[in-house]
């Protein structure tokens, strides 16, 4: 019937716009808590095996390219900044501002994913992909099993993170189109706001992944 108005206006189960916004925001925070638990399982597995095989993990970790990882961290941190600016623009009802900052966020997100793809490709070339024939890591002797576990966790954790980035890129694209269609105003900016929460969460996951995977051998030396 009037789907466009319905999405803009107050949905029928709510009494006030503030109630609707609060509900959406709380919903996103709870979703992010489930995400913490989701990633938590992998962080737990990582912690246990790192405790069990510290030397192998140190060697395996130092085979990763720390400079590329660091560069990607900077890219993601910048994207969080541009996301905040997009949220701010939406709260002020500046349509062109929203679009500008969202596109910038999108570009940074894609950059991160591109660099990640390059890094993964490198692993294939170096035979550092667990489960593939000819897996081998130099410098750990016969401990190829634990090395395989390190790279399994590396792929599982960065892969899961990248999947969240891909979803994030999809959300950003959708938001850009919606912003172009004039869906957001100073009164209605909840989708931009809660998508921002999601984006920052994915960013923070990387902030933990980067030191765990790339930097752990530093203190052992």
């Amino acid at each position: 019937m009037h789907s466009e108005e319905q999405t803009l206006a107050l949905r029928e189960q709510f009494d006030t716009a503030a109630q609707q916004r609060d509900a959406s925001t709380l919903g996103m925070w709870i979703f992010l808590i489930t995400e913490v638990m989701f990633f938590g399982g992998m962080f737990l597995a990582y912690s246990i095996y790192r405790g069990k095989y510290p030397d192998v993990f140190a060697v395996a970790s130092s085979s990763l390219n720390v400079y590329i990882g660091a560069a990607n961290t900077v890219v993601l941190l910048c994207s969080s900044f541009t996301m905040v600016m997009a949220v701010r623009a939406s709260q002020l009802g500046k349509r062109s501002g929203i679009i500008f900052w969202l596109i910038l966020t999108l570009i940074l997100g894609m950059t991160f994913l591109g660099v990640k793809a390059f890094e993964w490709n490198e692993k294939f070339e170096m035979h550092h992909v667990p489960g593939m024939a000819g897996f081998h890591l130099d410098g750990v002797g016969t401990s190829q099993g634990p090395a395989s576990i390190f790279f399994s966790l590396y792929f599982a954790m960065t892969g899961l993170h990248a999947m969240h980035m891909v979803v994030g890129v999809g959300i950003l694209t959708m938001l850009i189109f919606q912003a172009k269609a004039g869906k957001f105003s100073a009164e209605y900016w909840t989708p931009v706001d809660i998508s921002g929460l999601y984006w920052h969460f994915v960013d923070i996951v990387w902030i933990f992944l980067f030191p765990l995977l790339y930097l752990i051998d530093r203190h052992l030396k």
Partner: protein
Amino acid sequence: MITAAVQQRENYLNSSYGLKSWLLTKDHKRIALLYFATITLFFFIGGIFATLIRIELVTPESDLVSAETYNKLFTMHGVIMVFFFLVPSIPATLGNFFLPIMIGARDLAFPKINLLSWYLLIIGGALAFFAMFAGGVDTGWTFYTPYSTSYSNTWVIATALGIFVAGFSSILTGLNFIVTVHRMRAPGMTFFRMPLFVWANYATALIQVLGTPVLAVTLVLVFCERLLHIGIFDPALGGDPVLFQHLFWFYSHPAVYIMVLPGMGVISELVSTFSRKPVYGYGMIAASSLSIAVIGFLVWGHHLFVSTQSVYAGMVFSFLSYFVAIPSAIKVFNWTATLYKGSISFETPMLYAFGFIGLFTIGGLTGLFLASLGLDVHVTDTYFVIAHFHYVMVGGTIMAYMGGLHYWWPKMTGRMYPDGWAKLSAGITFLGFNLTFFPQFILGYLGMPRRYAAYPPEFQVLHVLSSAGASVLAVGYLIPAIYFAWSLKYGPIAGANPWGATGLEWKTSSPPPTHNFDEIPIVTHEAYDYTTVEAEVA
């Protein structure tokens, strides 16, 4: 007359017609009925597997089915019953229907997500069905590694993927409930005026949201390990299969409380209504739901007493497991204290409530046997464990679910069920249940291990008793299926408040209008205040 007026009134069932109006509905009440139909199907399919198991166990030899087939039967019984029936059972049907009404809301906070969660359950169920028809799975519902990841030649991934998807259904329901309870309460409906059923579902939602993602990530690791043999759970590569058990039970023990807490919430409603007294110690029952949710996360290690866990960890987990008994006992004592000097009426829902209190108490107390280190070593993986958790899950949760269904059936459908048949089948269920599962305590104590198709002849008497009980129990479930269906068309018309109960769901018509209330109520009283109901009736 009144009945004619009720019949013609516009409600959520007659406001629109057609398949599309159901499959694309955003009304929490219709989604609850979609869930109800779905999980009823799952329940009877899981029941068929149970029937086959019990028939096989009538004789000591594995003669009806081979040992391999038997492995698949108990696995699929467990998978269907736990993940596709018990976990969604009360929250997704009764909770979905009544949680918003009980707090005076027009709907859940996110109706579309609510519908999505039903579709996720359907997709998960379809995957599990596919695995069943393609050849089944034989790992046990626990998917222990390295058997599930390296050795089993059955449909592990399809089944686990089904559970993975259904898990997101559970997460989204939990998320929806939490936000709804926090943001959608009617004016005057403070947290401590909420009915205890809402508290129980709220506590359940917390577990769903915090626990289920851990199961999801565990299953992801199982997929990777099984597909690529990357070593996470494979001792040959330095991995640790026990890590799987820790991760699995970190979800699956709290999942026990996902399954039983909503049932406890139902019982609080039933005991109060049919004693016509406010629940004794309302605050303590509400708090005990939350503390069960919290402590439930700290006891998973009692599943690993014989899995190379250190004895000190075992002692801590043993202590914490005893600790859960405190909030559980608070509930049982408070329900019985509510009965004291109450004006008790023995309606069908109350019969189920009595059944719950007795059977859950046995299930809970035998849980303490299992929580004690020495005794657990003796009965680990025996029928004692089977009997224990069936007393909690079937004697507890399903009793409460049946009680809740009877209690709220007039509200959901506008029709009463046939009382005589209902009381009869409540009795049959209780008898059949005890005959099925009590012998299993003895079997287990005598040393009958779980998951075997064949057994020594001296156990046959007890196994035959159990199988006989199972057929009685099946009758107890089939009769309600028939008369509930019958009552949809022929049941006597129910008024708005057939039980003289408190609670906002009884303040609106039966069945409720699409937006639950013609006018959002303003709450001025505590929950279970019978003086207001008496004023209305008088």
